């Protein structure tokens, strides 16, 4: 279990100019870059799909509101079925990709029990 929360003592923390800040640990930088790139690509795909629905509705109504199954129009189907599936699929892909990257990290840096506390030092 992760380290328990500890109260911060509210000593006025020092600040530095961003230009004087030391560079981020290369491993953390790599983690963040990988994570953010995956997240942004998936979000871009997801939002392209999401925003295509109002675009279709407002600018191509003859396609959007064309019945495809009884009284159900294409846009109704996309809005109430496909979008719901997309929400789960995008999150699932993200989780699968994340766990794959995590396994790679664990292969390179095996976790030792003794390191547990060191890894979870609360920032203060």
């Amino acid at each position, binding site marked *: 279990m992760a380290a328990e929360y500890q109260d911060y003592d509210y000593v006025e923390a020092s600040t530095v100019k961003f230009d004087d800040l030391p560079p*981020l640990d290369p491993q953390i930088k790599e983690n963040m870059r990988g994570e953010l790139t995956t997240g942004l690509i998936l979000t871009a795909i997801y939002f392209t799909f999401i925003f295509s629905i109002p675009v279709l509705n407002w600018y191509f109504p003859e396609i959007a509101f064309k019945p495809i199954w009884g009284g159900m129009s294409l846009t109704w189907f996309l809005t109430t079925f496909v979008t719901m599936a997309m*929400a789960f699929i995008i999150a699932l892909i993200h989780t699968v990709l994340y766990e794959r990257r995590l396994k790679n990290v664990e292969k390179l840096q095996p976790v030792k029990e003794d390191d547990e506390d060191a890894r979870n030092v609360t920032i203060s």
Partner: protein
Amino acid sequence: MLETLLSPKMLLTIILMGTIVYITYLTKKNENASDFFVGGRGFGWFTNGSAIGGDYLSAATFLGIAGLTFQLGYDGAYYALCFSIGLTLLAIFVAGPLRRFGAYTVADFLGYRFHSKRARLVAVLVVFSISGFYAAPQLLGAAQILSMFFGTSYEFGIIFTCAVMIFYVGVGGMKGTTINQALELWIRLAAFVIMAVVAIYGGLHYDKVLDGINSVTGPIADTSPYALDGKDVEVDGEAWSGTGFYFPTFWDTISITIALALGTIGLPHILLRFYTNPSAKAARKSALMAIGIASVFFLFAVYLGTVGRGIFISGEASDQVMSDMVTGGNNMVIPSTAQALGGEWLLGLVIAGAFAAVFSNLSGLFIASSGALAHDLYGTFIKKDMTEKQRVMAGKVAILVLAVVYGALGLLVKDASIGHLVALAFTVAASTFAPIFILGIWWRRMTEKGAIAGLLVGLIVSMWMIFLPGTVPDFLTFKVPGIVTVPAGFLAVIIVSLIDRRVPADVNDFMKKVHSKEAESI
């Protein structure tokens, strides 16, 4: 008397209340603040995933989405699309890092990230604003159900629900709340599944129902006795199934999409849920499970709202159901549809489900806000040296205070739409906490002044556009003003941070803590 007690709606509601009391009693032992505020961080992904679902799928989903679909047609169903996006974005950008950070409250994040009491104080103000906005429609839903199906007054409904919350959260803390929320989620889902099965079995297939609705335009016969103006209710099938019925422009549609998609990332009671997982890995799994459940839920909600509309237009339901659908407003469509589909027993199950939705969501809001009041405000600014027992006691007193405040807000929104009010709460959340969490986790350049500016600008602009729409220029007026308020929040953080340039000296340590993969499975 006995007949009333044995009626399905009363019986099932009593069983639900009894279960809540039993679970709360079993989990009443909250030895320390971690137990009370984050359930000892001991819940696995399944329980937590169910509880996140329970928290997220409030009365706005259970009653509101179906009601909006019933009334507004495609534009109402579009709310479901927007609500469905948020949890996925949260899972991608925030869930894992937030759990690795580990704290008690949402404001803790700002307290730690910037070592700032000022930022914490502003965050508390925002937590109260969002929670108040969110709690009022939940109380409205509970009070309307009590009023419509048990004959109590609206005011009694508000007081009763607040009293239940005081017991539920005040005694059980996060432990009791989590287990209750998880259980309540499955009650609601069961109610929806049974309703959908009964509808499909009864021949109310989606395509046919939509076809029936689309083809009817004009007055619905014999509805005049229930209408306020004494005339038959008019419908327009073509307008109902098209867009523009409620959102007048393309940009209005984009605006609500932005607000609701990002709003989830800023909801204090949802963010808090990720602190209760034992690890970041469990947090991701919880989020994934909640997204799956939520997607199914939204799908059912829209379908059942459509079925309700179909039943109403066909005019084949009983007088009672027809009357309820006209007089109950859009918030009561699900109970009325349940009654039409499965009689008193299905109505009873749906009423229990609706209470479960209200209690589940309200309890999350109470826990999140009590943390803000007791831990962030009282414990940080007034009495810093509290013992663990005093912290728990402060949390319980905070619940009492919140019950009074939320109750008062509930009384003010008597005639509002639950779904729309919650959409406005999402707007405030998307304009305040969403920029803070996304940029705070991923952007080292964010400064304390930038964070405070983002919170204040997001809060003030969204409140202005929601409460004083008459003073907003026409070209900036939207039903849900996310397209203006969300960029305002983000831009304020970015611009002020770039001008300020003074970042916390330990920001690299913070980034290491929230992005370190080695700590993932611990």
